[in-house]
Each structure stands twice: as C-alpha cells, then as structure tokens.
C-alpha cells in the first residue's frame, strides 16, 4: 500500500509535457464526464505505466503505450492526465484483489425449442467477427482496426444436437454506455437475455481486455472467455497459466486462434458445457469488491430483486441509464436515497470519486489475477513495444508519413488503371465479338435492337470494368487488414481537426472509396453526434467504386498521359470538397466543441491472401449481381425510352433525338449545357441517380447510333471519341470529359446511400444532402468548364 509519505513525495506532472521515450506512472485523470471514464476504462488508472511513443507527423496527436496497447491522444487530452516519473509503489492496486464471490442466481431455464442464443462480445479488433465467420460459415467483413462491426450479425451452428444462434456484436471497451456501440451492446444483452456470453479477449493484451470481462461477470450470465490470438502470446514469450487464470476469474478460458480456426471447436464445447452447467447450478461468480462495497451491493440488491448485480453497482455509481430502471419501482425514491448514501460512504472511505474507485478495483482484480497467472517475457524491458509495431518507424515517421500516405493512394489508383487495362481489353473484345455474333445471327428487328444495343451495349459497357473494381477492392482490403487504416487516421488527425472533423472520420472516408453505404454505417464509431453528422454528409463526396467505370472510360478515352494522376486528382477533389463542406458545416449549423481523439493503434498484421480473395470475390459477385439485375433492367428501360416512338425514314441519330429519352434530354439540356454537357450526358447523370454504374450503361445505349461508330464491335470508348455535334465538332474533349467526371463525382448520392443517410441521420438531412451535393456538383463543374474554356 502506498504510504502517506510516498503520496506527499509525488509531485504530479502532466502527461502532455512528457518527452518521447519517457515512461511514467499515472497518478490520476482529471476532469469529469464521459471522456474521463473512457480514459480510465482504457487503462489510465492509478499506477499504470505509460510510455510516450511518438508525436504524429503534424505534432498532434501523440501515441502512448499503456498496458501493452498503443493509444493515441491529443496534447490537450494528455494534459488531463497527471503522472509521475518517480517509481511510486502503487501496490494498493494489487492489494485491491479480493478474489471472487459466489452469488445465488435463478437457474437458467433450458429453452423448449432446443435453440440457444450465444452472443460474442469483446474489445474492438479482438477477432470476434473472425470467430463468427469461422463458426457460422458467414463472410462478414473483418479488418485490423476497431469498429468494423457496427451492427449485430446473426449466424447459426449446431453442436451436440442443439441448434445455436450466434450473434456478433460491435466491439466495445466497456458497457458504460459512453458511445453508441456501448449502448447498443448493453441494451442488446439486457433485452435479449442470451444463454451465454462468449467473451473474446486479445491474449496478448489481457490486462486491458479483461476489464470488460469484469463487467460481464457482474451481469450474471454464463460466460466463456476465449483467449484469441493465442499464437501471438506464445510468440511474445509471455506464459499464461490458463487453469489458474480460469480459477481466479471463475470462468472457463480457452485458447483460440480465430483466423486459422485453431481452438474453435474447444471454445464451442466449453460454451455448451457452461450452458449445461447453468441449467443445473444456481451459483454465479462475480468480482469481489471488498467488504464495504459487497455489503452495499447486497443491501441495495435486496431492494431491487429484478436487477442484476451489474445494474445495482451502476446505480451506486449514479449511472443515469441504470437509475432510470428503478423509476418504475414502488420504492424508487428509497432506492435512490440509499444509493446516494452508499456512494458518499464509499467515496469517504476510499477518499476518491466513485468512478475511479470502481475502475481501480476492477483493474486491481485483473492485475491481481494476472500477477498470479501471467509470467511476462523476462527479456522484454519496461516500455518496449510488443512485436507488430516495427513498421511504425517508417509509416508514421515525422517526415515520411504523409508522403507515404499519398504514394500509397497514388499506387492504388495507378495499379487500378494500368493493371486493370489488360483484362479489360479482353472482356471488351469478348463483348464486341458477342455483339457482332448476335447481330448477325438474329434477323433485323426490334428484338435484335434490344439485345445488341440495349442489353449488350448497356450492360457490356459497365461489365468491362470488373477487373478494375476487383483491383481497387484488393488494395482496400490490404489497407484494412494490415492495420494501416488506424495509422492513416493518426497521421491526418491534425488536418481533419482543422477542418472540424475527427481523425476517426478518415476511416469512413477510406471505406467510402469502396461503397458509401458501409462508410455511412461506419460513422457509428464516432462518439459525438455532430461529428457523425458532418462525416455522414461529406462521405458521399468520396468517390465510390460505382463511379469508377465512368472515370475509367473518360480518362482512357480523352487523356493520353498521366492517366493514374488524372484519376487520383478526381479522388483528391472529392476529399477537398468534403473538407471545405466540413469546415462550413462545423463553423455554422453543426458547430460543436472539439471532441476527443482516443483511438487504439492495433499492431500490424500480415494481410492474408484468403481474406483478400474473399473480399475481392464478394465484391466481384456483388458487381456481377448488379449487372444482372438493376443495370440490366435500367439499360432495357433506357433503350426503350431511346427507341420509341418510331418514325419512318429517320437516321439513327435523328431517331434517338426524337425519342422519349431525346425529348427528356432536350428538356434538361439548358440546365447542363453551361457545364459543357449535351443532352445524352444530361440523361446519363439523371438515370445514374439509381446506381452510378448506370451513367455508363446509359451512354452505352445512347451512343449506339453514332454515325462514325456504326460497327457493332466498336467499344464505347471509341464511340465517345468519335461522337460529333450537328455542326461537326466533337462532343467530348478533355475539358468536357473532366467537367463531366467532376459532376459524376459530386452529384446526388445513389438511392442506397440516401437510404443509409436517412437511417443514420434522418429524412431532413437526406433531403438536404440531395440538394446540397447536386448544387455543389453543378457549381464546380460550371466554374471548371467556363474557366478552362478561357485558356
């Protein structure tokens, strides 16, 4: 126990002022509220050792190592943590370990239909979804950064003749309802009463991961702890006595390596045994908080027999969500008064605030258990980082980090363009051949026109870009699996902060390069609602893969040099417009105080070929499914609108100009003409509102009648290159093509993205987004076209 003399000798300093490489001990976290609670839960408790790893390239935030985890905090946030470099003996933390207590709970009723429900919970990025995919055969998205899963996913497996529903919940550091995902997990468990909790912990980072375990233990639900990434623990040289640890925690613990399936069967068997025991036994193991708090828990628990021990403890902590649960009881006022008296008594006794006391006690319990069961590698010095962080010397280097980030992005687009061009040509030739063959095989008539011009012209025009889509998703998969996503957020946080966004917003932005819908869903990891709103409303400016076919078509047709850079410039303009929008929003109608940047930097992991292939395959399949459904149907409709009404004796060009589509196009031409677009381009962006690939398929259908491209084998690229206006001028040139790309980049998000915005932000913001994005697109294309034409 730290003596009074020790306490007097400590002159606390602020973590913010500590130099890189320094290891200090936490004395206390100042301030109050949710941010303080989050820091405590992430391990910034009294006595914990913190090492300053490095400043981000733009000086803010700072990377710290605590309990083996790498956490980034802004300077202003680190200034809230008092530390000391004196090697103080805070051994009262270990002294706080009082073992476990057994509580009598009602026995679990076996479900009549023999179906069991098991939920997966654990810290972010601990491997829950990897296990879920392995157990159920699902192919849910995984990645090496926190917050990949933002919703519950359900799957099934059967074992020993019993059917089990497995539910994958979002990762969470605790159940204190600080952020939306914590609220979601807590509410899900409370409302669904699972038969067991399968708690996944990162075996290489037990101290921090087991904090959540202490909360789950108090919920009186049968629990099994799966020690995931067991292979990494073994490689690190640390030794864990699983049997002793299980005894100390009062829960079954099973080693697991989820990504390759080692230990999965054992984990499931242990879960079933635990459920079967819970059906017979009525005892449950809880953290022992010492005589004073245990007495309080017993007394208050007797006054609220319906509530579990976790909730009773939260009532003593004055957690508002927990307090609300007693409001419906007859003795609500008495319960609240008793809880207040207890809280004051505990705070007086421990001479600290209740949140710190409970967090310290929980960490004390974990540390005490680990002191008995875990033998750290004796060769590893204090403050030395664990394996998996060595790449940071280069990738988050002060001078190289930003150039590397830009080069990686350029490489992604250049590879997408150049590598994809070869298979694209093969597919293009195949489609050209198919069009010719069907054209010759079928007699002249409306059916032949539908198949050749409508279906092959429309769907074929988009299908040729499948290789590029696969390559783009391959690169996104590498970024997600390696752990670089969190580094990118770390590197750009200062810039994002300047524009009124959170560093974590960078992750939805990167996901948005693939598809806007999961990107909008990924904003759920942002704690502050206004941060979320600004990110949701700016994510559609990140160019999704559905727009890629249009860029690839136009860049290849009208730019002969530096095609990769032209493509990248489109993406960068999207980022720039998002940044300007964010600045405007965060300084006007979405003004808010700055939010904290507490983010974990996971160790780098080798991306697996299996995962990258699954990711590519699933995206490729979705792309082909889109071709066979919505793109096909839209192409048929666009063709029909461009084919009817029929007029005898007209040239193909006159025919299409007088068609329904032509009339519609002519009606909107005055609006798009100042941007350099003809009516066909106007109609293409209109139909592209349903799904962005339809822009290209519409052009594929509308440009079939071009005079200089009567050969059915001519590719859409060639048709666009030769398309002429009635006065003989070319329709497209590089300026028109770029203006068109800018419009496609910025205008109206697709229907699916709008539905996601409605779901996450509400109808009002969805309507705002429709007008805002389209207005911005028109304005920027207009300025670009008119200015470029002057030179």
């Amino acid at each position, binding site marked *: 126990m730290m003596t009074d003399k020790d306490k007097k000798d400590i002159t606390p300093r602020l973590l913010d002022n500590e130099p890189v490489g320094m290891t200090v001990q936490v004395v206390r976290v100042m301030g109050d509220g949710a941010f303080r609670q989050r820091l405590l839960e992430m391990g910034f408790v009294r006595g914990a050792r913190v090492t300053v790893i490095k400043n981000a390239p733009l000086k803010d935030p700072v990377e710290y190592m605590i309990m083996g985890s790498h956490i980034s905090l802004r300077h202003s946030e680190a200034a809230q943590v008092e530390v000391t470099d004196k090697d103080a003996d805070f051994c009262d933390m270990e002294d706080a370990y009082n073992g476990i207590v057994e509580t009598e709970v009602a026995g679990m009723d076996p479900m009549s239909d023999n179906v069991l429900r098991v939920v997966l919970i654990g810290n972010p990025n601990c491997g829950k979804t990897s296990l879920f995919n392995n157990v159920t055969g699902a192919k849910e*998205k995984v990645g090496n950064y926190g917050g990949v899963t933002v919703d519950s996913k359900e799957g*099934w497996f059967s074992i020993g003749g019993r059917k089990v529903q497995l539910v994958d919940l979002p990762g969470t550091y605790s159940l204190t309802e600080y952020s939306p995902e914590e609220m979601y997990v807590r509410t899900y468990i409370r409302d669904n009463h699972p038969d067991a909790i399968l708690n996944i912990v990162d075996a290489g980072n037990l101290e921090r991961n087991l904090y959540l375990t202490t909360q789950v233990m108090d919920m009186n639900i049968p629990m099994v702890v799966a020690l995931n990434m067991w292979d990494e623990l073994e490689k690190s040289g640390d030794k864990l006595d699983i049997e002793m640890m299980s005894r100390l925690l009062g829960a079954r613990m099973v080693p697991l390596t989820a990504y390759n399936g080692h230990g999965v069967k054992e984990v499931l068997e242990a879960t079933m045994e635990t459920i079967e025991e819970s059906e017979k036994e009525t005892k449950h193991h809880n953290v022992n908080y010492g005589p004073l708090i245990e007495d309080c828990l017993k007394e208050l628990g007797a006054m609220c027999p319906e509530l579990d021990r976790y909730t009773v403890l939260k009532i003593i902590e004055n957690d508002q969500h927990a307090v609300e649960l007693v409001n419906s009881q007859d003795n609500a006022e008495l319960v609240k008064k008793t809880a207040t008296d207890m809280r004051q008594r505990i705070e007086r006794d421990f001479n600290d605030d209740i949140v710190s006391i409970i967090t310290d006690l929980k960490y004390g319990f974990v540390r005490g258990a680990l002191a008995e069961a875990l033998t750290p590698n004796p060769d590893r010095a204090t403050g030395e980082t664990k394996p998996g962080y060595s790449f940071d010397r280069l990738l988050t280097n002060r001078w190289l980090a930003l150039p590397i980030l830009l080069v990686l992005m350029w490489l992604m687009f250049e590879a997408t363009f150049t590598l994809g061009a070869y298979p694209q040509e093969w597919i293009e030739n195949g489609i050209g051949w198919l069009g010719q063959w069907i054209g010759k095989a079928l007699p002249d008539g*409306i059916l032949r026109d539908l198949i050749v011009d409508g279906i092959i012209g429309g769907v074929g025009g988009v299908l040729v870009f499948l290789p590029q889509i696969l390559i783009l998703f391959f690169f996104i998969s590498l970024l997600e699996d390696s752990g670089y996503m969190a580094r990118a957020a770390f590197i750009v946080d200062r810039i994002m902060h300047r524009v009124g966004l959170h560093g974590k917003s960078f992750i939805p932005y990167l996901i948005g390069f693939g*598809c806007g*819908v999961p990107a909008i869903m990924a904003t759920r990891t942002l704690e502050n609602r206004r941060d979320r709103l600004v990110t949701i409303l700016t994510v559609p400016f990140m160019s999704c893969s559905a727009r890629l076919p249009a860029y690839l078509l136009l860049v290849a047709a009208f730019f002969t040099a530096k095609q990769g850079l032209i493509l990248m410039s489109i993406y960068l303009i999207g980022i720039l417009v998002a940044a300007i929008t964010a600045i405007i929003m965060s300084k006007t109608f979405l003004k808010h105080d700055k939010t904290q940047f507490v983010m974990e930097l996971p160790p780098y992991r080798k991306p697996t070929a299996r995962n990258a292939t699954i990711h590519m395959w699933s995206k490729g399949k*979705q792309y082909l499914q889109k071709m066979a459904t*919505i793109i096909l149907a839209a192409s048929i409709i666009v063709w029909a609108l461009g084919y009817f009404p029929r007029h005898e004796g007209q040239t193909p060009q006159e025919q299409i100009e007088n068609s329904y589509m032509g009339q519609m196009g002519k009606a909107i031409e005055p609006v798009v003409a100042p941007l350099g677009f003809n009516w066909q381009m106007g109609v293409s962006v209109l139909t592209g509102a*349903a799904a962005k690939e339809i822009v290209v398929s519409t052009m594929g259908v509308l440009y079939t009648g071009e005079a200089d491209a009567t050969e059915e084998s001519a590719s859409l690229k060639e048709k666009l290159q030769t398309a002429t206006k009635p006065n003989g001028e070319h329709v497209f040139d590089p300026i028109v093509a770029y203006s068109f790309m800018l419009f496609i980049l910025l205008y109206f998000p697709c*229907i*699916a993205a709008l539905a996601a915005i409605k779901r996450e932000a509400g109808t009002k913001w969805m309507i705002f987004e429709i007008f805002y994005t389209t207005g911005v697109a028109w304005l920027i294309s207009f300025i670009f076209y008119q200015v470029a034409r002057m030179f």
Partner: protein
Amino acid sequence: MTTSTIIQTIVVLGIVAVALVYVLRRVIKTSRGHGDCGCGCGKDCQCKNKPGKKY
C-alpha cells in the same frame, strides 16, 4: 406489319414492362432501407447470409 414483327414487339414490350416494375420495386425497397443494395451491409443482405455449420 408482319406476324414476326408483332410477336417481337409484344415480347420486347413485355421485357421492358418487367424491367420497369423491377426497377421501381427495387428503388422503393432500397429507399426504405430494406433493399439488397449490393454493398453487403443492408438488412436483406444479412438475411440472405444466414449460413449454418455443424460441429
């Protein structure tokens, strides 16, 4: 107008009608947040993806 032309016109108009109904249904469903948007994250996507394994 020959019989072949009439049959072809009927077939094509049928295809166009089916396509139109499909697109409208799809757009309405997606705008309500229940469509299979193809991104792998919507609720319907999840419903389709409920595999099971035996141990």
